């Protein structure tokens, strides 16, 4: 198997990277009809598997689960999840030959093994669905030519996919059809019906391609989503300890701060997040985030370049082959950081205080989101795709940090994201070393406005506001967010 993307001529590379259409709700008027009466068989019954299956069945579709023999015989959790909710469960041999649509919801790393095992069992002209394109694009998995290959990827954790569905809404969803595997031209209709079945059409569906999804997803998760949140959290915590801020307070500010700050981001983009600061703090946050963007730009570009060239996936797959040696070592190191080991103190921090006392994180997030977005767009990824993989997902990841710090974040995200996150984090910390030397507690740990008179220069404020508001990520975001305003806030702080 060789990297699929690298086999394409430049013209076709650009063509596939550029598939990006935010679909009108009228496109879904046919509901689930394209899947009605068909047999949907899901491989794997973890959080995504179970919750997507519950939704599809509640939309009137015929859903069953296939699991490896050992999972069934050992009555593992996946088997219990499926059977206790009254789904039919069978081995690959029993169920795959009956499947019209086979939905692969196993972890990335198992894809090659799973797909190789199931493909010979699939009936002629069936459909194989993925929720991530890594296996097809980076590993270059070749699928039998009669089989239709689609992707349906809800952009939220499995529990949210279910929670939003039962309240009559859904989560934003990305769909795609693999151009090499659409022999009857039915892929798009089926992917749309699938998105209706999980409720995704109510919150906005983005038509993408396997290539665009993978290249943007990897970039987002490595840089702004996981990598920078990890770097920013650790640097902020260490700075506060260095400056004598109470450790319990520092731990709480960092653990919950990203969630509170990015809730504003989720609702109103960078503009809303920056508007939560006082005018002087906003100008300061703008200035230092500009500085950070300049410092980190080469690193963001390197990540994007390695993703595009296949260098990233190649090194990661070498680590897979080496029993995840690097991944496991880096994971253990993250578990040992001072931030991870200091419990959040029993102090009350008001919602506004998270902004006023953690201006540094606001600057980190602005820098990271804009930089990731800009770098992706420069590499040929469309702005809508870049938005989903940067700004849109930041609050979701921030929420996992609030739950149980960085260790939890790295547990919840895929191993692929985790691997990329560590790569970024290790390179980013030294880059920011000089910058961090200048940071004082007014930016992190204490109220920025304390002892300042609150006055600003009109012209300067106008320029800063203008720069924030006219950035392309804000323009695209305003349109996409409109479709998902009804999503509930997930809150822990």
């Amino acid at each position, binding site marked *: 198997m060789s990297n699929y993307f690298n086999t394409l001529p430049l013209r076709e590379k650009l063509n596939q990277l550029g598939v990006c259409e935010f679909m009108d709700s009228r496109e879904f008027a046919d509901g*689930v009809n394209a899947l*009605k*009466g068909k047999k949907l068989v899901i491989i794997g019954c973890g*959080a995504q598997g*179970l919750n997507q299956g*519950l939704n599809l*069945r*509640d*939309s*009137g579709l015929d859903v069953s689960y296939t699991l490896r023999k050992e999972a069934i015989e050992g009555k593992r*959790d996946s088997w*219990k*999840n499926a059977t*206790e*909710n*009254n*789904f039919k469960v069978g081995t690959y041999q029993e169920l795959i030959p009956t499947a019209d649509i086979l939905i692969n919801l196993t972890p990335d790393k198992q894809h090659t093994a799973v797909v190789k095992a199931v493909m010979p069992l699939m009936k002629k002209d069936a459909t194989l669905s993925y929720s991530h394109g890594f296996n097809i694009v980076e590993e270059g998995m070749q699928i039998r030519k009669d089989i239709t290959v689609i992707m349906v990827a809800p952009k939220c954790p499995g529990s949210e996919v*279910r*929670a939003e569905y*039962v*309240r*009559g*809404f859904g989560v934003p969803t990305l769909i795609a059809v693999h151009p090499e595997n659409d022999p009857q031209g039915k892929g798009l209709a089926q992917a749309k019906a699938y998105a209706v079945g999980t409720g995704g059409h*109510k919150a906005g569906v983005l038509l993408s391609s396997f290539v665009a999804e993978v290249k943007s997803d990897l970039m987002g998760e490595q840089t702004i989503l996981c990598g920078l949140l990890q770097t920013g959290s650790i640097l902020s915590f260490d700075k506060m300890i260095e400056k004598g801020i109470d450790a319990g307070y520092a731990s709480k500010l960092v653990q919950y701060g990203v969630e509170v700050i990015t809730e504003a981001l989720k609702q109103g983009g960078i503009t809303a997040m920056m508007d939560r600061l006082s005018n002087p703090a906003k100008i300061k946050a703008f200035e230092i985030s500009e500085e950070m963007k300049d410092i980190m730009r080469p690193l963001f570009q390197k990540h994007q370049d390695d993703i595009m060239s296949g260098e990233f996936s190649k090194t990661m797959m070498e680590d897979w082959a080496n029993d995840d040696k690097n991944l496991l070592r880096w994971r253990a190191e993250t578990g040992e950081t001072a931030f991870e080991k200091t419990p959040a103190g029993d102090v009350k921090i008001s919602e506004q205080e998270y902004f006023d006392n953690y201006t540094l994180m606001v600057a980190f997030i602005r820098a990271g989101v804009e930089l990731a977005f800009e770098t992706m767009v420069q590499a040929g990824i469309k702005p809508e795709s870049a938005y989903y993989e940067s700004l849109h997902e930041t609050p979701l990841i921030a929420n996992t940090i*609030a*739950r*149980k710090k960085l260790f*939890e974040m790295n547990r919840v995200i895929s191993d692929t994201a985790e691997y990329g996150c560590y790569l970024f984090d290790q390179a980013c910390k030294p880059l920011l070393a000089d910058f961090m030397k200048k940071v004082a507690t007014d930016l992190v740990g204490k109220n920025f406005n304390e002892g300042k008179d609150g006055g600003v220069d009109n012209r300067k404020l106008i320029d800063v506001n203008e720069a924030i508001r006219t950035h392309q990520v804000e323009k695209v975001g305003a349109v996409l967010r409109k479709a998902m305003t*009804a999503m*509930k*806030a*997930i*809150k*822990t702080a």
Partner: protein
Amino acid sequence: MQRPLLHIQDLNLKYQNKLVFDDLSWAIQKGEQWVLSGISGSGKTTLAKAFAGLVDYAGEIEINFDIESKLPAKVLFIESWYQFKNIEGVANFYYQQRYTAQQAKDTLTVNAELAHYGKENDLAFADVEPILIALRFASLKNSQLIELSSGEHKKLQLVKALWLKPQLLIIDQPYVGLDAKSREKLNILLDQACADGVQLILISNEDELPKSINHFAEIENGKLIEISAQEIALAKSNNELGEIPEFLKEAPVYSSDLIAKMVDVNISYGEKQVLKNINWEVKAGEKWLLQGPNGSGKSTLLSLINGDHPQSYANELYLFGNPRGSGESIWDIKQHIGLISPEFHWYFDSSSTVWQSVASGFYDSVGLFQQLPYTKSKQVDELIAYFGLTENKNDLLSSLSLGKQRLVLLARTIIKNPELLILDEPCQGLDQQQTAHFNQLVDELCTNGMTVIYVGHYESQLPSCLEKRIVLENGEVKKIEKIKKENHKVQAHLELID
């Protein structure tokens, strides 16, 4: 002279920026046990919260604990609403969640929750056992919080309070959601607590109270007036019911004579069976009363009809004429039904406005995601006016008192004039007059041919249209029978079955 336990001087108290108490003065002497009553929205809860230091106030509230008492020198306020979070600290649940079997354990078990509470308050675990047994809660120790019914959550709150035994215990709506036997038991337990030195303030409009209660007060127009025991049971001044909106007078059009039919239905979670061999048929136009003790499976039974239970698919179940799992979506089912239950209220999206909440009933969604056509939005306005909520229509649901929130959700339940109304303890949190009004409305809707399934623990607070009843016990059907009517009163004939 001994100083009073609680002494209030010139108290000024606001709720949502409106002054509810103006220069209130009051004292509770040692040994006094109080009940506070008052109509919904009169400020009972706000006042109690002020005693517990949970809201801001102007004026003086002085509490004189007995330093020689063995009981903790604390004021404990038990909210009428329960709260819990999952293990990760998120309270982002949805009401169907407890019906879904999921191996990843999301919430604490009752045992772990009690252990945590005991440790926090330095309590001996041995002391909680008799309370658990008295409230028939012991068998739930290994249940997860998410699995508890609303009545069981209420019991858990009470267990904690009775275990802690603070010097001043304030309970807002102690009886809400409890079955008759549990209410009796609770009164005995409260009497014991009083004998041990606890002083009580119960906020309640009910008349089955602990014997120890020796003072009664009513809150009316920002005043606290001491009244006699008899007065508390008297109905409050009566406003006439307005004319119901025209669109609710239309008879529902039934697609099938059979609303629901269950044949040997079984539901279990792992080893635990919650419904056993249920056989039940609901025909179009029938008015059912569903009864059973807390935890007997009532809500689970109703969830099957409302399309909310994942295990419906492996059971023989017919809804609106079609076998369940024959290609219908849950939205196809819900469009025939208007449902309210304590859980539904608990999990409802409180960031919606009153208007949006009522309008969402047209689409069976929790929150409004669509534009309403003109005729429908007129109907929402009309119904909001009928319920007397016009001045609140743009308020956030979460900003209203629980009683008012409940009224909003009741309006949501009937807005589409559905074929089937599922009313699972619809009047929780309402005062007697509001309850009487709502039940009158149900009676009126029934005369138009609507089908009703009603759950209520209070025999005296049921609509008179109910004609049949099904009684559950431990997940089994104990009885299905016609309700005999005498003196035009249902309750005269309902023995105390739960």
